[in-house]
């Protein structure tokens, strides 16, 4: 089984974004960029399917292909995926913002060429917070989807996926080929070892362009303003639980 995993280069999880003073966008210059955490979970799961682990039999996946759509530097994100254990990478070079709809169309092109049996994506990128690409891709392919996965069990031409839904867990059977998006608790990604980081440098990365798939990446939505969120004023420190209860009574919330 071939597994395809799209990965996105985003602002590092631990950093706080700055809004440009003129409201024209956010300033990412000189800030560390990393693989989107949910994409990292997706790569980890695919590699476990290959290596055997996380409940998957060894060789459940025979090949893991990582794809990234973004600027030249997304090569680094792909190398990160290769260091975790993906076999090869595809970089679809695109500068500027590429919306989930265009990403899904490009990925459909990649999938038509690569013919994977399973595509695992992060449920959401932590920059634009859209939570849309996996579902859009499933619709464009007319494939079934299981989003927000916390457990995947492969069984022949099907996968049984447990999903994190409001109020609990839901389990679905989906026919392969299918789209799965990862939630936080699916797995805990490994730290890539130095030998694997070195090995990753030798793994092949194909470079493509959106036009290779006939996709126009011009954004559909126009951002007209970017602002700082409204600041909440820090309140007061209370000394004792008794004082706290008094304040809460005054505020009328208890």
């Amino acid at each position, binding site marked *: 089984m071939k597994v395809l995993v799209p990965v996105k280069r985003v602002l590092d999880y631990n950093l*706080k*974004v700055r*809004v440009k003073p003129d409201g024209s966008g*956010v300033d990412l210059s000189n800030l560390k960029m990393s693989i989107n955490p*949910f994409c990292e979970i997706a790569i980890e799961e695919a590699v476990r399917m290959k290596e055997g682990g996380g409940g998957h039999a060894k060789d459940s996946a025979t090949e893991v292909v990582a794809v990234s759509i973004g600027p030249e530097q997304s090569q680094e994100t792909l190398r990160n995926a290769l260091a975790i254990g993906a076999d090869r990478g595809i970089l679809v070079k695109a500068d500027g913002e590429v919306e989930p*709809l265009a990403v*899904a169309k490009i990925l459909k092109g990649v999938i038509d060429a690569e013919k994977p049996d399973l595509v695992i994506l992060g449920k959401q990128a*932590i*920059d*634009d*917070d*859209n*939570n*849309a*690409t*996996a*579902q*859009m891709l499933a*619709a*464009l392919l007319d*494939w*079934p*989807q299981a*989003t927000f996965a*916390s457990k995947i069990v492969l069984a022949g031409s099907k996968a049984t996926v447990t999903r994190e*839904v*409001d*109020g*609990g*867990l*839901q*389990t*679905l*059977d*989906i026919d392969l080929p299918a789209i799965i998006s990862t*939630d*936080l*608790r699916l797995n805990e990604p490994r730290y890539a070892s130095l030998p694997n980081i070195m090995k990753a440098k030798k793994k092949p990365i194909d470079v493509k362009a959106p036009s290779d798939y006939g996709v126009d990446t011009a954004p*559909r*939505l*126009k*951002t*007209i*303003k*970017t602002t*700082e*969120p409204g600041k*909440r004023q*820090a*309140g*007061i*420190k*209370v000394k004792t639980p*008794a004082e*706290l209860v008094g*304040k*809460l009574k005054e*505020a009328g*919330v*208890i």
Partner: protein
Amino acid sequence: MAVLVIAEHDNTSVKDMTNKVVTAAKAMGAEVDVLVAGSNAGSAAAAAAKIDGVRKVLHADGATLAKQMAEPLEALIVPLMSGYDAVLFPASTTGKNAAPRVAAKLDVMQVSGVIGVEGADTFVRPIYAGNAIITVKDEQSKKVLVVQPTAFKAAGNGGSTSVETIAAPAGPFKSAFVSEEMAKSDRPELTAAKRIVSGGRALGSSEEFHKVLEPLADKLGAAVGASRAAVDAGYAPNDYQVGQTGKVVAPELYVAIGISGAIQHLAGMKDSKVIVAINKDEDAPIFQVADYGLVADYKTAVPELMEELTKAGL
């Protein structure tokens, strides 16, 4: 102009977030219809017909819609869109699951996490876990919006409009429901709760998390929430998670216990009316958003707080 709101419901009743999305839809200056897609969901459809300002309710009923899965919802909603300029989903897991499928089929880029409606084509949404807020213009001829319900006031339930029955999609679909495991709790649901008691990594273990937070939550009639760190550490299930990657809440009272206040957590609770933080680290960022901060070890502070609440008649 007419828009369609997808109701959040459990086949019996309509959740309050539906009323909130109706408010967002009305702010677009449009006629608002509500779709109730379910199985044996007649009483939910009847409840939706009471929401103020709704033109009519569409009710699709069938076995394929019992669990409101993404594929049947797509098959149902996409053809309906010939009669609407926009469709609005609540940002529930059901809404987030289905909306992008509908959008892609309509060749539309959706607007996710809408927290403000400034007319028929201009929407406000957070990015970067709420650390930046963008205003976007959507000039596509059809629009697909996923609305953050906590950002809107609920429309009332004083109306009465007609319910029109429409056909459910027949299938078959390539995904099948197997089972579900819903948390059974007498406590209010996190996104609807007026009070929330939330715990962080400082609680140290799952046993401690439940032992400390649950009695306090029950005393306050509150829901229990958790930070991502506490969920990651396995102290609490993921559906407790408040934050960018979990639930966005805005209760009247939010009590954060042993939560440091990472950016991604603040994104999920900073619109709460009153925030209380109890943390022994006086430099914890949570104190920068808390109305009332208590620098103390929760181990002593929470039992004392319980006592004081009892004295206060709770």
